[in-house]
């Protein structure tokens, strides 16, 4: 059977499960901390043959208390304990199985800055970037690069309390007016040159295979800076794309250097037809890519999970 851990309402996971079932294998879906015991049981019986992980989705028990701070800390404590068990299972019993995906735990997170450096060393073009601490420097960069964007250094912010809601995961352009409103000194902020683009490329990489889409976000203003902000009425054009051979080789090298056998990569194609690397997302959703390109990636992943493990 294939062990499945993903977000509960994920359509892509349902398709994966369907393909696995069509091959004649069983699935074992886990989401709760209490499921860990069942995993250990199935592991000891030698029943787990492969693992599919997609995004977060582990549900942690809710502690009945009126104090939100206490609630938060208790959850973190229980969560970290559960993560320790997961990590142990993956370091031991589940280690040699065919697997798709990565566990969404802090130890597995990619550092964006390290990735950019690794890409640069492989000869991939990357946008100018700098970690900025002062308003004056930000003004200088704005002048040099003309248009700049701000990206989260890690995962962005998502704070919801009784008093405030602060969320921000998207990339945003920073105007001179914005800068004028900033403090003189601020916490480290990732600033990148806004690279002019004619279209974006989203690449899904899985075990040396590449599936690519060109995303034409420029025609529609809502998606110009961040293509995830898509217009529902006339959605941005998404069509299959063939990466030049040299770029394919560099992507494979980069993924091998980052020890990832799965992930989504973003590129920009400039008006001069240069390919500029933006980032790797080791938890990227590939369902939309599979559908837009009619790639049937879900079927390929399921087939891989149902072939006998490496051992």
């Amino acid at each position, binding site marked *: 059977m294939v062990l499945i851990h993903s977000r509960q309402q994920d359509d892509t996971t349902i*398709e994966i499960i*369907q*393909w696995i*079932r*069509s091959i004649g294998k069983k699935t074992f879906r886990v989401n709760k901390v209490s499921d860990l015991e069942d995993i250990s049981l199935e592991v000891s019986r030698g029943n787990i043959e492969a693992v599919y992980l997609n995004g977060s989705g582990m549900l942690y028990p809710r502690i009945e208390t009126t104090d939100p701070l206490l609630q938060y800390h208790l959850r973190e404590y229980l969560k970290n304990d559960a993560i320790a068990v997961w990590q142990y299972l993956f370091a031991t019993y589940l280690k040699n199985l065919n697997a798709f995906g990565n566990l969404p735990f802090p130890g597995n997170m990619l550092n964006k800055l390290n990735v950019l450096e690794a890409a640069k060393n492989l000869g991939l073009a990357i946008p100018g970037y700098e970690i900025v601490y002062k308003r004056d420097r930000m003004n200088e960069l704005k002048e040099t690069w003309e248009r700049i964007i701000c990206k989260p250094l890690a995962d962005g912010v998502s704070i919801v309390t009784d008093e405030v809601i602060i969320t921000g995961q998207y990339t945003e352009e920073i105007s001179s007016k914005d800068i004028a409103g900033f403090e003189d000194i601020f916490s480290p902020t990732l600033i990148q040159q806004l690279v002019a683009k*004619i279209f974006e490329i989203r690449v899904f990489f899985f075990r040396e295979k590449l599936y690519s889409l*060109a995303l*034409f976000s420029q*025609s529609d203003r809502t998606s110009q800076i961040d293509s995830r902000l898509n217009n529902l009425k*006339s*959605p941005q*054009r*998404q*069509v*299959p*794309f*063939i*990466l*030049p051979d040299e770029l394919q080789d560099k992507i494979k090298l980069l993924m091998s250097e980052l020890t990832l056998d799965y992930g989504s990569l973003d590129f920009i194609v400039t008006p001069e*037809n240069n390919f500029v690397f933006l980032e790797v997302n080791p938890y990227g959703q590939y369902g939309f890519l599979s*559908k*837009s*390109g*009619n*790639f*049937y990636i879900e*079927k390929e992943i399921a087939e891989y999970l149902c072939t006998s493990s490496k051992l």
Partner: protein
Amino acid sequence: MRQDTPFKIFANCIPVKGATRSVFCDLQRNKVHLIPHALYTIVTEHQGCTIKQIKAAFENKYDEYIDEYFQFLEGEELIFYTEMPQLFPDLDLKWDYPFEISNCILDLDGQSNFDFTSILLGLNQLDCKYLEVRGYTALPMSVYESLLNAAQNTTVTSITLILADNDDCDLEDWENLCDTYSRVCGVTIHGHAEQLSRHSAKFSIPIKTVTRILNDETCCGNIKEHYFTSNTETFAEAQKYNTCLNRKISIDRGGNIKNCPSLPERFGNIHSISLPEATKQPGFKKYWGIGKDQIAVCKDCEFRYVCTDCRAYVEEPGNIYSKPLKCGYDPYTCEWVEWSTHPMKQAAIEHYNLKTLC
């Protein structure tokens, strides 16, 4: 307009040639654009050329028309300009589905005395995902509740209800049903006094009433423009399969297991044979591979890959490759006419004994 940069069609916008005119099927935005053959020729034979080159190829006699065509293509975002057209492949039109059965139609009337638990068990064994329930007579709410209860914990995750109006139930009751059973994804009540539409409060499930009365399965099989679906899944499936019958199973009012309730072939009765067993009977998949390219007239129609189909009511009963009877479109004249009064169709209408021509 960029006269000097090669143009390329977006891969999910596919031109299709008909007998008299062509269409552009925008599979991403679910639109079908009518275009003349001349434009079909330009986009298919001159793809990768610049507008300037195309104009020259026509000896600059049609520059104005060509500019007008490209204004349209740009306006609808059907094409783009690029110096690297070789990096944009065509859309792969392969089609696949994990299981033999994706959809089931279950017909009910006052005589249908079905064991819903065993039906749903069969559908679960087939990994069937979609169920459409069509009720021709008013049935008590408890019938639908027992059906929906039987669907819990099965692979049947999307259930559409098309039911006869029931004096004992008002819209509130249907709304409650939708919000109690999360697998219900739409309700249509036919034979209602007025046309209403709303969404359920909790799950926002669309509920509508129509005045039209559905007496039995002979109401099905209509071909209309608003049934067209322009998306990759349908377009790809239509290349090789029958988009109405492929991967479908059904149970008619009498409990007969069929590919479609309107078709004559029976593969056993639900009281004596299970659904998975029925699908193994010879001939069960007889119609699945009849794509539009094999059907008379349809194969010349520009709408062939975005259209529905019907093999139960055809113009020449006995010829399973003839045009759907209930299609009023003629791809040779490009006209839509009322099919039911068409003199050439009267013999077939009589053959099928279609009393209500809806």
